């Protein structure tokens, strides 16, 4: 008993010590808890939120583009895509390998993906494949547990319902290339598209809108548990064009398989109602990404489908230039309406011979007959009398020889030659023979189809310096972002001279003997006036002239003449101007004039430019074409 009580005492002492030790250890636990949950709590709260909250950018829907009647011509469609978030998988190669068992991934694709993964921040998703079928979507969804970092995303892709007909005006959108990234985080989004040409490029910033963002809660495996906050961002601006889609389609249809251009514009407002360049291309294909073969086929095509010929094609205007020469001659006073010149089929200057297209000549010819029957000798003579400087000056007033400032990229300036120009560029003095050639729109003179339409517009609207444009309104919610049309300058043409030229153009079409008499519009109120043109693209040798000039059908396509027609309607109160160019089409009267007739007749029936329709018709200030690399490219224009 005694011994046990001794033992008990010692036990109690030791137990007290042990209890003390345990108390110290438990205090350490409490201290640690205090440190983590009170002292450091804020830091850990942040870390916990970083764990569970993911920020994602939301791409705003791209602004729709509609025609002058509100018909959508560039729209958005749903598009299922599979994306990879690099930071959510430990082994990208392995993930791609597994995905490859569901949807085959080519080696080149894999290289592109890995390159993109390196280029982007690790939480930015990389698009692996777009336009997935429903079956593929379902199969990937089922396998997500085995595919870390893989997600299905619903994107929007650009869709052009009238792809071929509107391709050159609208341009296309495509994935951002490496040099194009700016501060805009949108450009880093997978599958984000920006405008690469046409209206899509010029108005890209407005159409793009601004990015929204999404906060989602994710679990440790990156799966989205719920949405915490959504900010939709600013959708892209709706853009209304001056184009009339039906007219555009018709013009495209009339050009058919030819390589050429049709431009229809309102002579007063400058609204471009149709601008077609053939052959077209499919902008939807660019959106999906072209294969190398498809790209090569487009680039190596003789008929250059990628070039908008309406503004980017340079053509000798041929006889369509004769009105310019006539106006210059009348203004200088070297001719009057009564002045007569004898055409024997050719004229001589020094030891050079200049031929009329009509071998036997037109006989006695005045201004009216000269234009109506397109007598070359008449114009050789009056050009000689007027001189190149006065012709060039008139041409420039009528809109030739310089860019018109249309809101599309790729516009070419054309060329109105002069003495000064030749010295500067070619380094030789001007020859009088060259004035004669310019008198019939050959030689150095180059124009674009759009310039020809503007030229004719300015001649029939009373001499107002109308300029062409494609956009009416940028509509951003309720705000209409547009600018009132600036006052167009008078270019100082004498009304009597204009009347003379217009009368002659009426005769070209509506009086027997006119070069386009076969292409006249029979319905009286829709009658058109105009001028045919045939631009020679080869040199006819002396030997060939002596034997027999080869007909176009006998020549290879590339050597055939360009067929041109410029016109307006209705003859009494001109509202619409047209220019038709068919590359290597042969004669203007045979090929180009019928197209103009069909298009102008429908234009008047639709009367798209009728006053009161969608009024007020406003003209937009042309936006700067902001280069995505940050440099300003508009300076080049």
């Amino acid at each position, binding site marked *: 008993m005694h011994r046990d009580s001794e033992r008990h005492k010692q036990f109690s002492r030791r137990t007290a010590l042990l209890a003390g030790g345990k108390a110290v250890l438990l205090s350490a636990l409490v201290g640690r808890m205090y440190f983590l*949950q009170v002292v450091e709590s804020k830091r850990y709260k942040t870390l916990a939120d970083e764990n569970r909250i993911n920020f994602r950018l939301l791409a705003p829907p791209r602004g729709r583009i509609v025609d002058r009647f509100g018909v959508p011509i560039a729209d958005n469609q749903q598009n299922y895509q599979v994306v990879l978030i690099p930071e959510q998988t430990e082994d990208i190669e392995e993930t791609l390998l597994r995905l490859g068992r569901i949807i085959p991934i080519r080696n080149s694709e894999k290289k592109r993906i890995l390159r993109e993964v390196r280029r982007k921040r690790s939480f930015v998703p990389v698009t692996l494949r777009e336009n997935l079928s429903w079956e593929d979507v379902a199969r990937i969804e089922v396998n997500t547990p085995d595919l870390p970092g893989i997600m299905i995303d619903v994107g929007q892709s650009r869709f052009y319902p009238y792809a071929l007909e509107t391709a050159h005006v609208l341009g296309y959108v495509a994935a951002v290339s490496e040099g194009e990234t700016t501060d805009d985080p949108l450009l880093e989004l997978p599958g984000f598209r920006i405008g690469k040409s046409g209206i899509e490029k010029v108005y890209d910033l407005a159409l793009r809108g601004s990015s929204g963002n999404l906060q989602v809660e*994710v679990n440790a495996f990156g799966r989205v548990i719920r949405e915490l906050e959504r900010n939709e961002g600013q959708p892209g601006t709706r853009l209304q064009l001056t184009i009339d889609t039906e007219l555009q389609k018709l013009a495209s249809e009339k050009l058919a398989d030819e390589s050429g251009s049709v431009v229809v514009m309102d002579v007063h407002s400058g609204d471009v109602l149709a601008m077609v360049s053939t052959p077209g291309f499919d902008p939807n294909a660019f959106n999906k990404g072209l294969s190398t073969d498809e790209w090569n086929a487009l680039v190596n095509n003789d008929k250059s489908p990628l070039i908008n010929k309406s503004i980017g094609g340079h053509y000798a205007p041929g006889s369509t230039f004769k009105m310019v020469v006539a106006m210059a001659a009348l203004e200088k006073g070297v001719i009057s309406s009564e002045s007569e010149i004898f055409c024997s089929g050719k004229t001589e200057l020094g030891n050079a011979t200049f031929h009329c297209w009509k071998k036997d000549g037109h006989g006695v010819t005045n201004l009216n007959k000269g234009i109506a029957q397109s007598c070359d000798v008449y114009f050789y003579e009056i050009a000689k009398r007027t001189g190149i400087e006065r012709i060039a000056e008139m041409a420039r007033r009528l809109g030739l020889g310089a860019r018109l400032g249309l809101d599309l990229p790729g516009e070419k300036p054309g060329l109105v030659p002069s003495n000064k120009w030749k010295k500067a560029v070619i380094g030789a003095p001007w020859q009088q023979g060259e004035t004669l050639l310019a008198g019939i729109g050959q030689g150095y003179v180059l124009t674009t189809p759009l310039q020809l339409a503007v030229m004719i517009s300015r001649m029939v609207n009373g001499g107002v310096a109308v300029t062409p444009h494609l956009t009416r309104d940028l509509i951003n919610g309720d705000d209409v972002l547009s600018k009132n049309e600036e006052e167009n300058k008078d270019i100082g043409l004498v009304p009597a001279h204009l009347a003379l030229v217009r009368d002659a153009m009426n005769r070209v079409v509506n009086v027997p003997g006119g070069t386009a008499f076969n292409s006249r519009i029979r319905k009286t109120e829709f009658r058109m006036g105009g001028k045919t043109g045939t631009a020679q693209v080869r040199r006819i040798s002396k030997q060939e002239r002596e034997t027999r000039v080869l007909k176009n059908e006998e020549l290879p396509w590339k050597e055939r003449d360009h067929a041109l027609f410029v016109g307006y309607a209705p003859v009494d109160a001109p509202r619409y101007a047209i220019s038709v160019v068919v590359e290597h089409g042969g004669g203007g009267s045979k090929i180009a004039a019928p197209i103009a007739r069909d298009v102008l007749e429908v234009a008047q029936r639709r009367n798209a430019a009728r006053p009161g329709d969608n009024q007020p018709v406003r003209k937009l200030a042309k936006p700067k074409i902001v280069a995505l690399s940050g440099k300003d490219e508009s300076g080049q224009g």
Partner: protein
Amino acid sequence: MAIEFLNKSDLSLGQKLWRLHWIFVLVLIATASVGFVMLYSAANGSLEPWAGRQILRFSMGLGLMLLVAMTNLRIWLKYSYAFYAVTLVLLGAVELGGTIGMGAQRWIDLGVINLQPSELMKVALVLALARYFHGGNMEEVARPTFLLAPLLMVAAPTALVLRQPDLGTAVMLVMGSGAIFFVAGVKMWKFAVLLLGALISAPVGWQFLREYQKQRVLTFLNPESDPLGSGYHIIQSKIALGSGGVFGKGFMQGSQSHLSFLPEKQTDFIFTMLAEEFGLMGGLGLLCLYILILAYGFNIALNCRNHYGRLVGMGVTTTFFLYVFINIAMVMGLIPVVGVPLPLISYGGTAMMTLLLGFGLLLSVHINRDEPIGRRGAADDF
């Protein structure tokens, strides 16, 4: 005379029930209930798959505990060595047999629960050591040679569990035994010598650690070194705890736990989930319950009139303390990650059975606190 004492010392069932420490039992039930609530949350508000089964297991364990509490302490004394021996054989069987034939299987399948001899050993060793020291007087305890046998009793199972390798159990066996040696009156300098020896042999022992164990120790020393590998658990656990703040994120609102950032939230890291959802207050609350249990344990041991009961009481209480401390210190990044569950809370059957068996013994000590027990188990010989 011996028979007389035996009869005299035998309490009737009614007396036993009367003397049962009911408040202690209630505290245990309350603590376990915290566990049920957390398991319900871990399953996103469902009894399946954890909370329901845990309730069932706890109820069964409670039955076992009361059964043990009702048995005479002298019977446990009598069979202490036998219990230890059988457990050691079982442990040897799963260890040696396991490595040869069945892979790393550490348990014996009993159908209802899987019996894990290493868990059972935590109780068996307490009993055997208590029996041994109960039989020695103070002079004997002071003799170094007297300590050889109990050291061997500790060393044998420790060596076996280290082979597994189960560092957590080994640490618990050594430290639990150390506490019994300590309260049994082993001189302080002997502990000092042992500690020195351990420190000297530590570099040698390092060689015997498995690669993953070495990794755990290294990770503990610098968890940020490998944020996606071994350090991930501890970093995420600390984030969960810290982000819980003082009052927590609310029941079933723990983002770390529910979004799977926290590993093993229903087992080893359940304290983290509790502290994330109920904050510092929740953690301290649970700690208070544990301290209450520990205090009752100390009280029972101190108030026992026989040495065996005292040593068993302290052994069980210390084992329980080790569970609590190692687990909570681990999830807070104070010590390396070792697989020790949070007692009465973590999902799992074996540890629960061990603990309730231990608490049964503790209750039995309490019921038989006034029983004098002789050196060899008889009531006559003090």
